[in-house]
């Protein structure tokens, strides 16, 4: 077994399968968790009927979605319409490839893991756009404009924010980043405030890229019906829904790895720590989701261009200065 795992292809395949299954399963039950959590926040019960504590609810949901009729609007661009949900899950899962759960448990230990991450988050815009354009529906089209504007805007602070960890650890590989944190302390506190601000902005930007509340302006069901997914039914809608959850979960995992030391922690094995940190962040996200109102389009853009981008631009020289002089690292 161990000899077999040395072959990078086999290794990638194995962990890829593990990741996909794992992520799918976790995603399914994260919807259950979210509904329970939201229920408690609003003095409700959440799902209770299917299985003990409603634990089988996700399976029931999946069955329901599969049974529904698959509609394609007459004037839709059929090929793009069908391609979009597949791509959206594909891109979301692609991120999983570089998430380092433990030193050995990661599908692809890319040299340029960070860039891969950014690339796929950037690409996430396309399926959303494609689906809404192909629907040939007014609401969807407005949603498409919003999605693209939001996507390319938040790409900027996201890239700039993650430059802070990159400069501090001097690597583009996510696993090296975690290893560095194990040695020199977590990035969230290594440079006071800077790491924290970078984390907050990165986190916000990944929320915006995933179109989560409070950044779900393209979806905005109260004004745009359901945005990109207006015309989607059944499992195709389910795929969009799933992609959002996968994206959110993986964002939490990545933030845990990049800013909170990943698998670093005492006593318990690394994987436990990594999962614990990810789950805490995910709970935090759920909490945010059920506490905040949706932003307006212009507020969203203001937040990005007037606050997040200047802040990250200021962080980069500060970090560079710290890295070169105070920590005595880097330098030419």
């Amino acid at each position: 077994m161990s000899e077999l795992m040395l072959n990078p292809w086999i290794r990638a395949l194995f962990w890829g399968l593990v990741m996909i299954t794992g992520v799918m399963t976790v995603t399914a039950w994260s919807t259950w968790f979210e509904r329970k959590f939201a229920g408690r926040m609003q003095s409700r019960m959440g799902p209770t009927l299917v299985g003990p504590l409603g634990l089988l609810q996700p399976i029931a949901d999946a069955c329901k979605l599969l049974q529904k009729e698959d509609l394609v609007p007459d004037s839709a661009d059929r090929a793009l319409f069908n391609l979009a949900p597949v791509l959206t899950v594909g891109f979301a899962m692609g991120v999983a490839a570089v998430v380092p759960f433990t030193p050995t448990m990661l599908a692809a230990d890319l040299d340029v893991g960070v860039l891969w991450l950014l690339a796929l988050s950037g690409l996430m815009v396309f399926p959303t756009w494609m689906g809404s354009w192909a629907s040939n529906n007014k609401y969807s089209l407005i949603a498409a404009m919003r999605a693209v504007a939001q996507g390319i805007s938040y790409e900027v602070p996201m890239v700039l924010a993650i430059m802070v960890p990159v400069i501090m650890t001097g690597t583009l590989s996510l696993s090296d980043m975690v290893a560095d944190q194990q040695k020199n302390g977590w990035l969230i506190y290594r440079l006071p405030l800077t790491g924290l601000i970078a984390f907050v902005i990165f986190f916000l930007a990944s929320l915006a890229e995933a179109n989560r509340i409070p950044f779900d302006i393209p979806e905005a069901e109260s004004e745009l019906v359901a945005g990109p997914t207006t015309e989607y039914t059944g499992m195709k809608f389910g795929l969009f829904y799933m992609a959002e959850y996968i994206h959110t979960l993986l964002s939490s995992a990545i933030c845990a790895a990049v800013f909170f030391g990943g698998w670093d922690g005492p006593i318990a094995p690394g994987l436990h720590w990594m999962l614990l940190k990810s789950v805490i962040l995910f709970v935090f996200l759920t909490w945010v989701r059920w506490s905040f109102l949706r932003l307006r389009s212009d507020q969203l853009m203001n937040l990005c261009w007037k606050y997040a981008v200047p802040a990250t631009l200021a962080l980069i020289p500060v970090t560079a200065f710290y890295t070169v002089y105070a920590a005595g690292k880097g330098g030419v």
Partner: protein
Amino acid sequence: MMERLFFGAVATVLIFSALMAVGTRNLVRAVLWLGLTLATTSMFYIMLHAPFLATLQLILYTGGVLSLMLFGVMLTRRSTEQHGVEVHNESNGQRRALPIVAVAVGLIVTAVGRTDLSTATPAAVSPETREIGQRILGTHLLAFEVLSVLLLAAMVGAIVIARRKDASLEGKDDPRDRAAALPGSRLSSERET
């Protein structure tokens, strides 16, 4: 053998998507086919031991440039689409373009055939990403700085070009526009001539 097959597959996708990008009449699809071409190119970069370029290609071209183009398509929708049907995207001038392109292909094949490119062997170790950074901020620093000035100029230029409001088309809420719309002013006399 595996490598050959893989290369062949990637090259086929690349060329096919490129042909579709210039050939399809549907502008949106053309842009999306271009996206496929660019994504496939990043596969080439991986085969050429340039993973940094590959991911950057995805971020910048596929993520950035393409989104911009889609924006362009959406903003000019009235031109590209009527009653939900794409129009006006047909090609013209094939009769004169085809020969020149055919000659160009022939020339390239001939030129490559006359070289000794096939004897070149690839580097055994792939270079580190770090080295690229050092190159940019070392040997090519001047080019890098000039490039930053260029990007700034492009940014300013794009804003200036796209921002200027045509008083005859847009609402005249800016006083300068109102002034420009007055008879005899320079801007208004330039307009529609």
